[in-house]
């Protein structure tokens, strides 16, 4: 069983502090939905509202079409995997897993049987009698997942369940989580501040900033068609040029930037372009979209000097200084067996097509941009 989750005009306030601001989201049943955002943006808070640990100050939350107002966490068809797991340290592994069954009054033998099945599912067969502290970090993580699944929730809520793991294990657990989700077929709401995680696993991603949902869409959409400057700067690497709109041409904007005039595509919201003449604007170009002009006639060109280059195996990472630009820009070039052809320190011309650049209204950027 899976249920869809709907948040309508949800506001959550702690005193004067607004942790969630007018959140509107619809999550389809059986979907893998991710919340992506920097630390402190309100992801956990939203999840706690969905699982029933706090009531929204305003707005409604519906699960499976039913309004959840006034329904406690133990009555909701959700199970939450806590950011710190919150396993019961005084219980054996199998008792942890079977806790949801125990409180429903299931007999011990049946509980044990179910726990053993779930231990198979999470690839920890025969480990049921261990104590929690005897498990490794990744094993604990899996036990937490099994414990939540044992409750047979319609919606599984996961609060950065992989954050404590090392890279290798995290990648392994990603595939495993996705596989589990497809096997049990329930709705997953997944929280992360790791964009790789969000983009690879999710059907839909919501990018959050300071309690606001900046954009909802699938991974491609978020990456290629960012709706705001925050999304553009937070998701993936991006080079930024500041400027002002000098003209609008259909879906394209002419922007007079500090490195010269650039033409860039705009992301439409509700069929409208977000910019008009004389607006302050940002132009974002991804490192992999930049090319050495090498005599080819590009619509957009930027003069730059190579400051530094790194060979990363399957690609080259090149850092360049641009006069008038406040930040060094970067480009990555696929390693096709050819020499790069330019020395460090040499002046080069970079080119890119308007379709690979995005013009967005000036706005907040991700930290570090």
């Amino acid at each position: 069983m899976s249920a869809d989750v709907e948040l309508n005009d949800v506001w959550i306030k702690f005193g004067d502090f607004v942790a969630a601001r007018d959140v509107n989201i619809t999550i389809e049943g059986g979907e893998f939905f991710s919340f992506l955002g920097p630390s402190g943006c309100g992801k956990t808070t939203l999840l706690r509202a969905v699982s029933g640990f706090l009531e929204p100050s305003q707005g409604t939350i519906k699960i499976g079409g039913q309004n959840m107002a006034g329904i406690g966490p133990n009555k909701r068809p959700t199970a939450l995997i806590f950011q710190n797991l919150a396993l019961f340290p005084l219980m054996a592994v199998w008792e942890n897993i079977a806790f949801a069954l125990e409180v429903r009054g299931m007999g011990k033998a049946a509980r044990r049987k179910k726990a053993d099945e779930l231990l198979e599912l999470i690839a920890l067969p025969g480990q049921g009698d261990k104590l929690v502290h005897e498990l490794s970090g990744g094993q604990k993580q899996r036990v937490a997942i099994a414990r939540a699944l044992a409750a047979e929730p319609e919606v599984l809520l996961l609060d950065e369940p992989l954050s404590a793991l090392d890279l290798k294990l995290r990648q392994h657990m990603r595939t495993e989580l996705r596989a589990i989700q497809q096997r049990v077929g329930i709705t997953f709401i997944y929280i992360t501040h790791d964009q790789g995680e969000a983009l690879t696993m999710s059907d839909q991603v919501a990018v959050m900033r300071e309690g606001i949902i900046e954009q909802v869409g699938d991974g491609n959409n978020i990456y290629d068609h960012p709706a705001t400057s925050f999304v553009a700067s937070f998701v993936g690497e991006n080079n930024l040029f500041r400027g002002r709109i000098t003209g609008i041409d259909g879906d394209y904007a002419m922007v007079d930037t500090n490195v010269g005039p650039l033409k860039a595509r705009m992301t439409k919201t509700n069929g409208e372009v977000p910019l008009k003449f004389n607006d302050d604007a940002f132009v974002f170009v991804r490192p992999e979209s930049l090319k050495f002009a090498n005599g080819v006639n590009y619509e957009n060109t930027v003069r730059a000097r190579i400051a530094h280059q790194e060979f990363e195996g399957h690609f080259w990472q090149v850092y360049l200084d641009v006069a008038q630009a406040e930040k060094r820009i970067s480009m990555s070039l696929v390693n096709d067996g050819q020499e790069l052809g330019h020395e460090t320190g040499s002046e080069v011309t970079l080119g890119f097509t308007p379709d690979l650049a995005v013009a967005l209204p000036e706005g907040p950027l991700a930290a570090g941009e």
Partner: protein
Amino acid sequence: MIADRVRKFFVIGFVIVFFSYLFGPLLLMSVSAFNSSAFPRVSPFECFTVEWFAVLAQDATLMEGLRNSLFIGFGVVLIAVPMGLAGALMLTQVNPRVRPWYYTVVISPILIPGVVLGISTLVFWDRLGTMFGASYDSIFYDGIFLTIVGQSTFIAAYAMLVFISRLQRFDTAQEEAALDLGATNVQAFRKVLLPFLKPAIGSAAVLAFLASFENYNTTVFTIVSESTLTTVLASKVRYGINPSISALAVVIVVLTLVGAVFYEILQRREAAAAKASEAVARGETATRAQQAALYADPAVIIALLVFIAGFGTVYFAGTLGVDECKVAVKEEKQRLARERTKMRQSLEMFKGAAPGVQTAPATTAPKVRAKGTEGYENVFAPSNLEETVDSDSPAQQKQQEQPEEKVESPGKSQFQNIFDPANLQQQSGSGGTN
């Protein structure tokens, strides 16, 4: 170099002074429990005896007090521990802004003098009893009940402190996880929080029991016509004590020591088990050495040795020569008394006139005492001296023999009368001149 040595000297000196300060009184008291002398003291050490333990066991009022104390202790545990737990849980639930106020209020019984708590308990229940028109043998006037209630008021606050410190280490996410998995509030409490609090419940119970057991200030008011160990002891001290009190102290000290050792062993066992299971988790096997370490703890070994030595001594001393020793002491005392009488008689004869007699004993007494001869204090108690001076020798003889007979039979209860308060004061007065 020299500074080093000086520092070392002072450190060692301080340690010695500190530990004598801590354990000196206990040690002296323990030794006096085995001295056949009728007054609890270490020197002169007359005969080694365990008879005071028998006296203790036969002391009906003391035993009655002890029984009441135990009963009250358990009663207090039953009331104060749940109350303390409730108070501590409440603290985690109240609004953070109200929390300091709440804390101050519930902790205040600790700060209020026990005497005040005792009196207020008494007054409160008396008013309540009057309101309901209860008779004097109803629960409103029952000393045991009032004492349990009165002590619980502040012992619950102690218990609460224990629970608060444990609760501070509780990860509330665990409780939320339980709720999230469908547990009711009661289930979450019973299956998650309560097991976590178990060690604290044990500690709070022990603490509550001990606090109740040793309480006097409150109890002395709330106990009304009943008695507890502390009130019995207090009245004994007022009306004359004998070494059975020391014997009681020894029993308590030994029980405490046994408890401490057991607790230590349990703790170590738990720690070792945890370590072993961690080792198993890492793929190692628990080694014998780890388990052996448990029994090799110096504190445990020392405590065991002390026990064995103590009980061994008591056993052998109990079977060998106590009576012979006492007879010898008695004979020695009688001999000294006779000598003294003779000496005095000869002095009287020598001096003849009454005015001179007044000063004579005073000059001889310190000399005799200075030799450190045993068994002198009773004989030379100022009251004895006065009587000796004022009366004739037959009365004086009688007076001197009386204490010696008492020494012979510490088990007899009539003995206690000899130490009326006046006597006691004089004793300590004469001891002070030593």
